[in-house]
């Protein structure tokens, strides 16, 4: 019974260590919570059957935590730079098209002298603003919202009696400023490009500590840390060879020779 008690205490330590690691390596909070619950349940089951926590997590808790966390950074499933910013890189002609359409509408109203009524101008800009704002909800990337703001400002100008060409000009200026500003905002809120967790090793150089070939894993020292390493290259890397980390696979670095 005493042994079991000790293992219960170990369970808490192991779980805490993993949670700390996940939190510090930018694993999403919800994922961390779920992993914590799942790991806790498993460890309790294992300990209840007289096993030690290390039969679950292996000898190195950190590398266990990392291998699980890496499932949440899998490039195939985690949106990375390319996909996340696709929505923010709309083709330029979409912007030009939207501006042209709204301007044409405003000019059409101005041409018809009998419709030169403040009420119609306000209605035009207000409807445009609302339509664009609704469109924004259904599209990605803070795009239409700048035009909605432009139209909104133009509606306010129309209401205060400013003439039509000025309304159009202000609509254009506000839209373009808004567009530029939201583009910058979109760039800033991109997922961090600074590699976290094990990904920070990708691109770094290391020195072979134990020979690596396609058929057998070895070890590589990167900075002050010693990692298990494999290679997909046909070369064999002997001790002291310089290699570059090209990817992370499980808890192993994937290395290639320095070109």
């Amino acid at each position, binding site marked *: 019974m005493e042994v079991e008690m000790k293992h219960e205490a170990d369970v808490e330590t192991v779980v805490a260590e993993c949670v700390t690691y996940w939190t510090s390596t930018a694993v999403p909070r919800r994922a961390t919570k779920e992993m914590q*619950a799942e790991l806790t*349940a498993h460890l309790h089951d294992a300990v209840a059957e007289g096993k030690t926590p290390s039969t*679950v997590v*292996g000898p190195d808790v950190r590398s266990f935590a990392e*291998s699980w966390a890496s*499932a949440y950074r899998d490039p195939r499933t985690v949106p990375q730079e390319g996909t996340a910013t696709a929505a923010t890189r709309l083709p330029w002609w979409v912007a030009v098209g939207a501006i042209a359409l709204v301007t044409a509408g405003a000019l059409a109203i101005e041409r018809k002298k009998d419709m030169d009524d403040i009420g119609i101008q306000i209605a035009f800009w207000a409807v445009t603003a609302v339509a664009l704002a609704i469109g924004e909800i259904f599209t990605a990337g803070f795009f239409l919202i700048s035009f909605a703001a432009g139209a909104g400002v133009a509606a306010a100008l129309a209401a205060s009696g400013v003439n039509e060409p000025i309304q159009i000009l202000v609509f254009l200026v506000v839209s373009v400023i808004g567009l530029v500003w939201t583009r910058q905002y979109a760039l800033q809120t991109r997922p961090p490009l600074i590699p976290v967790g094990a990904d920070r090793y990708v691109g770094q150089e290391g020195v072979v500590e134990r020979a690596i070939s396609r058929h057998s894993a070895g070890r590589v020292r990167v900075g002050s840390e010693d990692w298990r390493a494999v290679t997909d290259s046909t070369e064999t890397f002997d001790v002291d060879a310089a290699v570059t980390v090209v990817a992370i696979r499980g808890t192993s670095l994937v290395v290639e020779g320095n070109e």
Partner: protein
Amino acid sequence: MPVEHSSQLLKGVLDMCLLAIIDEEPSYGYEMVTKLQDRGLHLVSEGSIYPLLSRLQRQGLIDGYFVESTGGPPRKYYRIEHTGRERLKEWTLEWDDLTSGVKEVLNGGGDET
């Protein structure tokens, strides 16, 4: 080191095995480990199933959900999704091809009767 080698082999096909176990009936991590052991498959560390389960879930092949358990923390169960079942079929075929090829190689190929 026969144990070490067989567990290295198991590592490569573990995701497939987990998918097959979940295909039988919804299951949670510890139960999956037990089921593997019952069939003579021993893992170096039991926790190595979790990164794989997370990947399978993120790929939409399985779905995870928490169930309250009696006198313990809630357990995360996994059930198979339609795409998971399809993938399992593909993997099973690939595995059959691979094992028959490996068998031929191990038998030396020459003296077939």
